C-alpha cells in the first residue's frame, strides 16, 4: 500500500515548514520567520519592565484583531482593570474585544496570607479555568503572564513543577499557541527554570541603560525546528505597541533601478554623468560645518517634490520651520511642498532617544508616508545617540531597508575639519553608492565652499572640484580657478579673473596698437611711394618739356638754317633729309 509512505513524506514536510502563529508585531515575524510556533508554547523571559507582559498581550490582541484567532490572557500579576488600562495606553481597546468575545481576560490572584496547605493537591482548578475560557470563545491563543507567580503563592514546589509540566503538555494537546512569560533568573533564563518545560521557542527580552540611554533588545534564544535570526534585535515600545528591528532579515537582493533622478542642481547632475543619481541609491554628503550640506539636501528634496515625489526629511539638528526659513533665503520654497503634503519633516534631537527609537520611528514613518526620497540630516548625530558600532549596524540596516523599498536615501555627515574624511567615514562610505564631499577652501582670509564627487558607483563622474555657491536664487556650482597659484575660489577667483581680464585687455590693446602702427607704417610707405612717383612724374614732365623745347629749338634752328640756306641758295639734298627725320621724332614725342 502506498498510503504509509505518503504520510511519512507529508510529516517530514510538516516538520520542515513548522506552522507558525504570526504575532503581527512589526519585525518580530521577520526574525522568527513567521511568528511563534503554532499550537505550541513559547517562553518569553526577561527582567522586570522588559516588556514581557506587553508582548504577550500584543500576541493575544493582534491574534484576535488581525488573524481572527480569539485568545485568552491569564494574568497572575496585574488585575484585569490594570491590564485594560495599560494596554489602552497602547491603543488596544480590550474592553471592546472582551465584549465581542474575542478575548477573555482572567486574573488569577493567589493571596498567600489567606491560604494554608494541607495534604495533596493539584492545579486542576487552573486547568479548568483555562480550559473553560478557551472553550468559551474557541481560543486559538493563550498567554500566561507570569505563571511563575504561582511559586510565591503556593508552597509545594514539587507539586507545582509537576503540574506546570502537565500544563504545558496540556496546552500542546489543546493545540493553542501559548505564550508564557517568566522573570529572568540569575545565571538562568528564568527564576524557576521554566525553560525546562517550555523549550520549543524561547525569547529573551532585555532592557539596558548604557550611557544614560535606554535600549531594549530582543533575542530568540531557541526556536526548535526552525531557522531564526540569532542576533540581538533592538525593539521599541511606543504608543502603537511593540516594534522590533530589523523589519526584514537583510540581504543584498534588492531590485536595482536604472532610472536616474536629478540632484536639483544642474551642474551637479552634469558632474554625475549628466543625469544625476540612480533612483534607489544611497548618497552621502560629507562635509565640515557650514559647507552647505543641508542646502544641498534641501535642493534634492525640492527637486523630488517638483517631480511629484514624496520626500521624508529627518532633521536631527534643525527644526522644520528653521529649515524652511533658511532655505527660503537661498530662494527655495519648501513650504508649498509641505502644504501639498509631498514633504514631511521629522525633527528630533538625536540625543533625546536611543538609536532604536530613532530607527523605529524612521521605519514607521517610512511605512506610513511611503516616500520615494528620504533625507537624514545629519546621520552622524545618530552616532552620538549610540556607540559607533551600534550606529554603524543601524545605518546598514537602515540603508538596506530603504534600498529594498527602492527609496533614494540622502545622508549628510558632519566631519571635523582636522580629520581626514576618508579615514573617519570608512564605515559609512563602504555602504553608500555616491559620496559627495564638501569642504572649505581657506585662502586670502576667506572661506569658500567647494564640492567634489569622491565616488559614484556605476556612473561616469567628474573628478573636478567645483565651487559651491549659495545665492539668493539657489545653489550654483562654478568651475574653480586652477592656475599656477593653485586652486582659487571666492574673491581670489574673482580677482584672479579680473586680473586675467585686465591682462587680456592689455593684450588686445597691444595688438590694436601694433595694428595701428602697422597701418600707419603702410600708409607712410604708400605716401612715400606716391611722393616718389610724383617726383618721378615731375622729372619726367620736366624732361619731356626740355626735350620738346630742344626739339622745337632744333626745328626752329633747322627752319632758320633752311631759311638761311634758301636765302643763301645752297644745295638742300643732305641737310633736308636729316632735318626731316628730326622733325618726325619730335612730333612723336609731342603727340604722346
Amino acid at each position, binding site marked *: 500500500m502506498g498510503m504509509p509512505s505518503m504520510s511519512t513524506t507529508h510529516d517530514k514536510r510538516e516538520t520542515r515548514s513548522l506552522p507558525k502563529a504570526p504575532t503581527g508585531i512589526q519585525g518580530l515575524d521577520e526574525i522568527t520567520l513567521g511568528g511563534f510556533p503554532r499550537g505550541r508554547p513559547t517562553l518569553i523571559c526577561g527582567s522586570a519592565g522588559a516588556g514581557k507582559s506587553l508582548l504577550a498581550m500584543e500576541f493575544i490582541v493582534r491574534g484576535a484583531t488581525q488573524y481572527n484567532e480569539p485568545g485568552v490572557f491569564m494574568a497572575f500579576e496585574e488585575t484585569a482593570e490594570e491590564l485594560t488600562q495599560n494596554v489602552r495606553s497602547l491603543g488596544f481597546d480590550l474592553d471592546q474585544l472582551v465584549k465581542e468575545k474575542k478575548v477573555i481576560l*482572567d486574573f*488569577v*490572584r*493567589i*493571596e*498567600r*496570607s*489567606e*491560604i*494554608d*496547605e*494541607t*495534604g*495533596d*493537591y*493539584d*492545579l*486542576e*482548578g*487552573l486547568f*479548568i*479555568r483555562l*480550559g*473553560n475560557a478557551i472553550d468559551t470563545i474557541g481560543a486559538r491563543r493563550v498567554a500566561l503572564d507570569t505563571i511563575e507567580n*504561582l*511559586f*510565591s*503563592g*503556593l508552597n509545594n514546589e514539587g507539586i507545582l513543577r509537576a503540574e506546570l509540566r502537565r500544563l504545558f503538555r496540556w496546552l500542546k494537546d489543546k493545540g493553542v499557541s501559548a505564550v508564557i512569560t517568566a522573570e529572568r533568573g540569575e545565571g538562568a533564563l528564568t527564576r524557576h527554570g521554566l525553560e525546562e518545560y517550555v523549550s520549543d521557542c524561547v525569547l529573551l527580552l532585555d532592557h539596558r541603560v548604557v550611557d544614560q540611554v535606554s535600549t531594549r533588545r530582543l533575542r530568540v534564544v531557541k526556536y526548535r525546528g526552525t531557522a531564526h535570526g540569532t542576533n540581538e534585535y533592538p525593539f521599541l515600545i511606543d504608543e502603537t505597541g511593540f516594534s522590533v528591528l530589523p523589519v526584514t532579515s537583510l540581504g543584498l537582493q534588492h531590485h536595482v533601478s536604472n532610472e536616474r533622478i536629478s540632484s536639483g542642481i544642474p551642474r551637479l547632475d552634469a558632474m554625475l554623468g549628466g543625469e544625476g543619481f540612480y533612483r534607489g541609491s544611497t548618497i552621502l554628503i560629507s562635509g565640515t560645518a557650514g559647507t552647505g550640506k543641508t542646502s544641498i539636501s534641501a535642493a534634492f528634496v525640492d527637486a523630488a517634490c517638483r517631480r511629484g515625489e514624496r520626500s521624508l526629511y529627518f532633521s536631527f539638528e534643525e527644526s522644520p520651520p528653521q529649515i524652511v526659513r533658511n532655505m527660503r533665503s537661498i530662494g527655495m520654497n519648501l513650504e508649498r511642498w509641505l502644504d501639498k503634503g509631498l514633504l514631511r519633516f521629522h525633527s528630533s534631537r538625536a540625543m533625546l532617544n536611543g538609536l532604536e527609537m530613532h530607527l523605529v520611528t524612521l521605519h514607521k514613518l517610512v511605512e506610513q508616508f511611503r516616500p520615494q526620497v528620504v533625507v537624514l540630516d545629519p546621520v552622524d548625530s545618530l552616532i552620538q545617540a549610540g556607540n559607533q558600532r551600534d550606529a554603524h549596524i543601524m545605518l546598514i540596516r537602515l540603508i538596506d531597508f530603504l534600498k529594498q523599498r527602492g527609496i533614494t536615501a540622502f545622508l549628510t555627515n558632519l566631519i571635523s575639519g582636522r580629520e581626514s574624511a576618508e579615514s573617519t567615514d570608512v564605515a559609512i562610505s563602504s555602504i553608500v553608492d555616491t559620496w559627495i564631499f564638501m569642504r572649505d577652501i581657506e585662502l586670502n582670509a576667506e572661506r569658500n565652499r567647494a564640492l567634489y564627487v569622491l565616488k559614484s558607483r556605476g556612473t561616469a563622474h567628474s573628478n573636478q572640484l567645483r565651487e559651491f555657491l549659495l545665492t539668493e536664487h539657489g545653489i550654483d556650482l562654478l568651475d574653480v580657478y586652477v592656475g599656477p597659484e593653485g586652486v582659487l575660489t571666492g574673491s581670489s577667483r574673482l580677482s584672479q579673473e579680473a586680473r586675467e581680464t585686465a591682462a587680456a585687455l592689455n593684450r588686445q590693446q597691444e595688438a590694436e596698437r601694433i595694428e595701428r602702427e602697422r597701418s600707419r607704417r603702410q600708409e607712410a610707405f604708400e605716401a612715400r611711394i606716391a611722393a616718389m612717383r610724383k617726383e618721378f612724374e615731375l622729372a619726367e614732365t620736366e624732361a619731356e618739356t626740355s626735350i620738346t623745347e630742344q626739339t622745337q629749338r632744333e626745328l626752329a634752328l633747322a627752319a632758320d638754317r633752311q631759311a638761311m640756306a634758301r636765302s643763301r641758295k645752297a644745295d638742300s639734298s643732305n641737310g633736308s633729309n636729316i632735318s626731316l627725320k628730326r622733325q618726325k621724332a619730335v612730333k612723336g614725342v609731342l603727340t604722346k
Partner: protein
Amino acid sequence: MKKTAKPDQPLSLEEIAATRPAPGDVWELRLYTAGQSPRSMAAFANLKKICEEHLQGRYNIEIVDLIQHPQLAAGDQIVAIPTLVRKLPQPLRKIVGDLRDTEKALVGLQLRPAGSQEARN
C-alpha cells in the same frame, strides 16, 4: 527567591470577636472539587470528620464541582484542587489540599479544638 508569608496583622477587637465563633454561629464552608477524583473524595471525607468533631450542627458544606461548573472557579480565585473556602465566619480563609493533616486543617480554619472551645463556653 520565594517570598515568605506575611506575618498576620494583629487583629482588631472586632475581628477577634468575629473569628471566635459565638455559640449558634453557622460556619459556611465551600469545598471545590474536580469530579469524583480520589483526592476530592478524600478531602470531603476529612472535612466531614473535622466538622462533625468540632462544629457539630453549626456548619454547612457546599461542594462545588468545577468540572460541572467551571465558571465558578474565578469567583473564589481557585487554582488548586481541592480547595476549601471558609466563607463564614469572616475573614475568608482558604485551605488547599486534601486536609489529611487535621491539626493543620484546624489551624487553617482557625478553629480551636472542640474541647477547649467548649470549656470556655
